[in-house]
């Protein structure tokens, strides 16, 4: 197994740009293509944004670890934070078949995380940290 990790002891929204660039670099380095990279950048950016804005609160920086792992043919992104416990997979999906005038503003971040990955797995680590796994199956089939 090969993995690349980006860690912050105190990340803020100003770091999102670097996080997206890192994800793109890491996915391609591990053998994923630009399409897979694009999906994961979109999905993980939403999750990190939520951690920073909803989890820690906009004015409060906090630890963020983004790991990208090649495991067999699968590509996994592991996002770890120390914000209050929050399981995004418990957020009900929006109805995207309704016209815009009948929809609430926002509420699309978690939906994008789900749509752009094959599996989204949340778990609370033994140390009480939020750990979110974004899985792309067979993303490295040709490696």
């Amino acid at each position, binding site marked *: 197994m090969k993995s690349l990790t980006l860690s912050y002891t105190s990340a803020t929204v100003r770091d*999102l*740009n670097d996080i*997206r660039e890192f994800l793109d670099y890491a996915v391609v380095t591990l053998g994923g293509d630009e*399409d897979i990279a*694009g*999906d994961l*950048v*979109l999905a993980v*950016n*939403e999750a990190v*944004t939520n951690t920073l804005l909803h989890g820690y609160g906009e004015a409060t920086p906090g630890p963020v670890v983004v790991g990208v792992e090649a495991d067999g043919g699968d590509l996994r992104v592991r996002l770890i934070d120390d914000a209050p416990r929050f399981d995004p997979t418990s957020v009900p999906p929006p109805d*995207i*078949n309704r*016209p*815009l*005038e009948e*929809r609430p*503003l*926002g509420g*699309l*971040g978690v*939906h*994008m995380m789900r*749509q*752009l990955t094959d599996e989204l797995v949340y778990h609370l680590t033994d140390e009480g940290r939020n750990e979110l796994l974004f899985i792309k199956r067979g993303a490295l089939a040709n490696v």
Partner: protein
Amino acid sequence: MEITFWQETSGKPVTILQVRGDLTANEPLEGEARKAFAGGARDMVLDLSHTPYISSAGLRAIHTIYMLLRSADPVDESSAVRDIARGTYKSPHLKLVKPSKNGLKALTTAGYDIFLELHNSLPEAVASFG
């Protein structure tokens, strides 16, 4: 992200909002759109052809602009309801110029491509207002 807006007045006056760079925050774009709206703009093209990346915050801005333009057209309300029921409704006051592949992913994931007209170029989008 950089946002420019200007008007095309050869036909029906159309305001063009052009985003350059990633659309990852809603405030700047919403702010520019509100300014244009306050200045009388009622038909807008949002040019995303120079936008490699759109986050959910960017989608929120698009949604907000859509609602803003929608609010100024009460006549439209009834025909809209009919077209929505038929599944043929597309916003008559907001048209988009297609973003890159990744930007498009964000729009389609949210189902926005079904309710907003997407054009391949800015002239095409402007001309679509007739």
